[in-house]
C-alpha cells in the first residue's frame, strides 16, 4: 500500500500549487469590457493592423473547399499588405492578418474555434464554410457582438437582419440558384419533363425549393421523378437508373460532390439517357468535372455562376484571373489551378471586406457592420459582368444575383434562353 502515498503526495502538491496560482492570478475579467465607450477600439484592431478569423473545414471530406475559403482571402489581403495595407475610413492604414482554424465540419469544433478567436482577439469571423458549423456559433457571435460575416453558406438565416444582426452570408442563397434555372425553363415555352436528384441536406433542399417555386404555375414544366442521395455515398447509379426510366428531358442535379457529379455524367450516358442537364455552381467546373464526365454528349449543360472560371479558356488572359492566380501562388501557398469555386468566392470576400474597411469611420465592430451593410454595386475582381456585391437588401446575402450559363465544350457562356 506504500505505493499509494506517492501519487497522493504529488496530487497534494499540485492542488496546493493550483490554489496559490489561482489566488495570485486575481480577477481576469476586468480588461475585456466590450460594450461600452463609443470611441474605444474593438478587440482585434489597432492603429496598424486588424485580425480576422476563419473557421472552416481544413481536414476531412470537404477540406478541399475549406482550404480554398482560406486561400482566397489570404491571397487577396496578402497582395494588399505587400502594397502597404488598407487605408481605413478613419484615415489609418492597417495590414490585415488572417488566422485560420480547422473545424473539420464539426459544429462543436467550430464553436470552440470561435471561442478561441475571441480569446485570440480576432476582430471578426469571416469566410467560413458550412451551414452547421456556422450555425453552431451564430448565437454566441450575436451575444458577444462579434461579426460573423460573408460566410460561405447559402442558408438564408444568415442574411436575415432581424434574426442575425451580426451576420451576413456571402454566396447566393441556394434557393436563388435553383430559381434562376427554374425561371429559364419556365420561360422556354416548350413542354419539359424534369427529373430531380438532390443532396439530402439544406444544400440540396434549398436548390430544389428554389427551382420548384420558380416553375410553380408554369404549365409547360412537370417534375416526373425526384430522388436524393447522401453526401457520403460512393455511387448514385441506382438513382440515375431510376430517373432515366422516367423519360425526363431535363435533369436538375443539385449535387455538391465532385466524383459523384463526374460519375453521374458518365452513368447517364451509358444508360442512353441524354437530358439537358443542370449543375450547381460548385460542381460545374469544366476542367475538373465536365471534361472527365464527357459532358459534350449532352444537348446542354447549364449552371449558374457569378465568378469567372480560371480554368475556362475564355478567361485565360483576363487580368483579374491572371492576378488572382498569381496572388494565390505567392501569398496563399496555393500553386494549383483552383479545384473549387470557393477560392474565387473568398477572393471576392476579401474585396468586399476591403470596401467595408475603407468606409468604416471608427475602429469598432459596430462601425464595421454599418459599413459592411452599405456596400452597393461593387464589382469585385473575378465577378462576371452583370453581377455585383450588394449588401443593402434584407434577406439577401452579399451576392444575390447569378447568371445562368451554358457549357460550350470548353468553358461557359451566359445565356438568356433555354435551348
Amino acid at each position: 500500500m506504500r505505493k499509494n502515498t506517492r501519487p497522493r503526495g504529488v496530487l497534494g502538491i499540485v492542488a496546493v500549487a493550483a490554489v496559490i496560482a489561482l489566488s495570485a492570478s486575481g480577477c481576469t475579467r476586468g480588461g475585456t469590457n466590450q460594450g461600452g465607450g463609443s470611441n474605444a477600439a474593438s478587440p482585434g484592431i489597432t492603429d496598424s493592423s486588424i485580425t480576422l478569423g476563419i473557421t472552416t473545414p481544413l481536414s476531412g471530406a470537404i477540406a478541399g473547399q475549406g482550404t480554398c475559403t482560406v486561400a482566397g482571402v489570404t491571397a487577396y489581403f496578402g497582395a494588399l499588405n505587400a502594397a502597404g495595407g488598407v487605408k481605413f475610413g478613419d484615415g489609418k492604414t492597417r495590414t490585415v492578418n488572417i488566422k485560420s482554424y480547422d473545424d473539420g465540419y464539426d459544429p462543436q469544433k467550430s464553436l470552440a474555434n470561435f471561442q478561441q478567436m475571441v480569446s485570440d482577439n480576432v476582430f471578426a469571423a469571416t469566410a467560413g464554410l458550412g451551414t452547421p458549423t456556422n450555425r453552431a456559433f451564430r448565437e454566441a457571435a450575436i451575444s458577444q457582438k462579434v461579426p460573423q460575416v460573408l460566410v460561405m453558406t447559402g442558408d438564408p438565416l444568415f442574411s436575415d437582419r432581424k434574426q442575425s444582426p451580426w451576420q451576413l452570408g456571402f454566396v447566393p442563397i441556394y434557393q436563388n440558384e435553383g430559381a434562376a434555372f427554374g425561371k429559364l425553363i419556365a420561360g422556354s415555352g416548350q413542354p419539359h419533363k424534369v427529373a430531380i436528384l438532390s443532396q439530402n441536406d439544406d444544400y440540396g433542399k434549398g436548390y430544389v425549393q428554389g427551382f420548384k417555386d420558380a416553375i410553380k404555375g408554369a404549365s409547360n414544366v412537370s417534375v416526373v421523378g425526384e430522388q436524393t442521395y447522401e453526401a457520403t455515398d460512393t455511387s448514385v447509379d441506382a438513382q440515375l437508373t431510376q430517373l432515366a426510366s422516367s423519360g425526363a428531358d431535363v435533369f436538375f442535379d443539385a449535387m455538391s460532390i465532385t466524383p459523384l457529379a463526374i460519375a453521374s455524367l458518365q452513368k447517364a450516358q451509358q444508360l442512353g439517357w441524354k437530358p439537358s442537364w443542370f449543375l450547381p455552381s460548385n460542381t460545374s467546373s469544366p476542367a475538373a468535372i465536365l471534361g472527365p464526365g464527357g459532358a459534350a454528349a449532352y444537348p446542354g449543360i447549364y449552371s449558374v455562376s457569378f465568378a469567372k472560371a480560371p480554368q475556362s479558356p475564355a478567361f485565360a488572359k483576363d487580368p483579374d484571373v491572371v492576378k488572382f492566380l498569381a496572388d494565390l501562388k505567392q501569398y496563399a501557398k496555393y500553386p494549383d489551378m483552383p479545384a473549387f469555386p470557393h477560392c474565387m468566392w473568398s477572393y471576392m470576400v476579401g474585396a468586399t471586406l476591403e470596401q467595408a474597411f475603407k468606409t468604416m469611420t471608427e475602429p469598432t465592430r459596430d462601425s464595421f457592420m454599418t459599413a459592411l451593410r452599405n456596400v452597393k454595386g461593387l464589382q469585385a475582381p473575378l465577378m462576371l459582368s452583370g453581377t455585383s456585391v450588394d449588401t443593402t437588401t434584407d434577406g439577401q446575402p452579399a451576392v444575390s444575383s447569378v447568371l445562368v450559363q451554358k457549357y460550350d465544350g470548353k468553358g461557359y457562356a451566359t445565356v438568356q434562353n433555354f435551348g
Partner: protein
Amino acid sequence: MRNPLSAKPLSVEPQSVKPVATGNRTVRIVVLVLVAVVLLLAPLNLPPFANQTLVRIGVYAVAVLGLNIVMGYTGQVNLGQIFFVGLGAYVTAYGVKQGWNILLVFVLACLIAGVVGLLVALAAARLGGLAIAMVTIALPIVGVPLAKRLEGFTGGSQGISARFTDAPDWSGLYNDQWQYYIILLVTAAGFLLARNLVRGKYGRAFGVVKENEAVAASMGVSPYRTKVLAFTVASIFGGASGFLYLAAVQYTSPETLSFGHSISLLAAMVIGGAGSIAGSLIGGAYYVLVPLLTNAVDPGLTTVSQGAILLIVLFLLPEGLVSLPRVLRRITGRNRDRPGAPQRTVPAPAPGAGSEKQADQHQTEHQAIPDQTDQQQTIQHQTGRQDQA
C-alpha cells in the same frame, strides 16, 4: 472461494483495505477538499476561453467514461457511443424548445438514451466480438440520415439551437462560469457513480466477463446480462454527455453524431487509459485539447499532427496517459534499486496486458481471481489475438 463474485466477500474487501492507512485518510480528505476548492474557484479566476474549454472537456469526459464502462471494463467493442451523445443532445434540444423543466429534460436525455441503449443491447449482446462492433457502427451510420429524416424533432440538416445555460441574473456569473458549474455538477456526479459502479460487485462482473465469458458463466455471472447492463450504463452516460453537449454548444445537427467522432472517442478512451476512471477524464481532455493544439501548430496540418500525436503517445504509453506516473515510477524505481530488486523486473508485463490495467484501481483484484491467467491461456476467441499470448 471458487466464487469471488458473490456479493458478500467483495463488499467487505474495500473496507479491509482502508484501515491500513489511518494517517493517509486525513491526507486524503485534505487533498479531496483542496481539489474541490480548486474546481469550485477555478472558473472565477480563469479567462472565459479556459472555462469554455474545461466545459467541453467535461462533456467528452462523460462520453468517454460511458465508453470505458462498456469497452475498457467489460471488453465489448462499442463504436456507436457518439450516437447516444447525439440522441441526448437532440432530446435536450427538443425538451428545451418545448419549454419543459430542465431537470426533467436531463432525466429524459439520460432515460431515452438508456432505453434505446438497452433495446440495442438486448439484441446485440447475443452476438459475440466483432458482430457487436458492427451493430454499434450501425448506430451513428444510420443515425445521421435518420436525424435528417425526422425533421420535425431534429430540425433536419440545419440542426437545432437551444439556449438554456445563460447565467441567471441572481447568480452574478458570466455565462461560461455558469455553464462550468452545471457541467462540473453533472460530470462529478457521473464520475462518482461510475467509480462506485466499477469498484462494486458489478465492476467485478464486468472484469470477469471481459477476461473470459465462459469462466464468468461458471461463476454464476451471466455474461449476457452483464453485457446488457454495461451497454445500457454506457448509453445513459452517453445521453448525459449529450445533455452537457447542448449545455456547452447550444446547438446540435446530424454532424454531431457522425461516425468519425465515435472513432475519435474510442481513440480518446484508449489514449486516456482503458479500464480507468481517471483515464476517462484524461481521454476527454485529449479529445478536446488535441484539436486546439494542432490548430495552434498549423491549421492546415491538423490531420497529420493528430495522427502523429496519437501514435507517439501509444508508442510511449501503450496503456494510455493514465499509466504515465506508473511508467515513470517503474523507470526511476528500476534505476534506484538496480542491485537487488527482482520484484521490479520480473512482473514487467507485456505492454497493454489486460489484467495489469486495473491494477491501480484495485490492488486486490489479483487475489480475488487467483487462477485467471491459467484459464485464459486455454481460450481462443473469435477475435483472434488474445491478451496473454
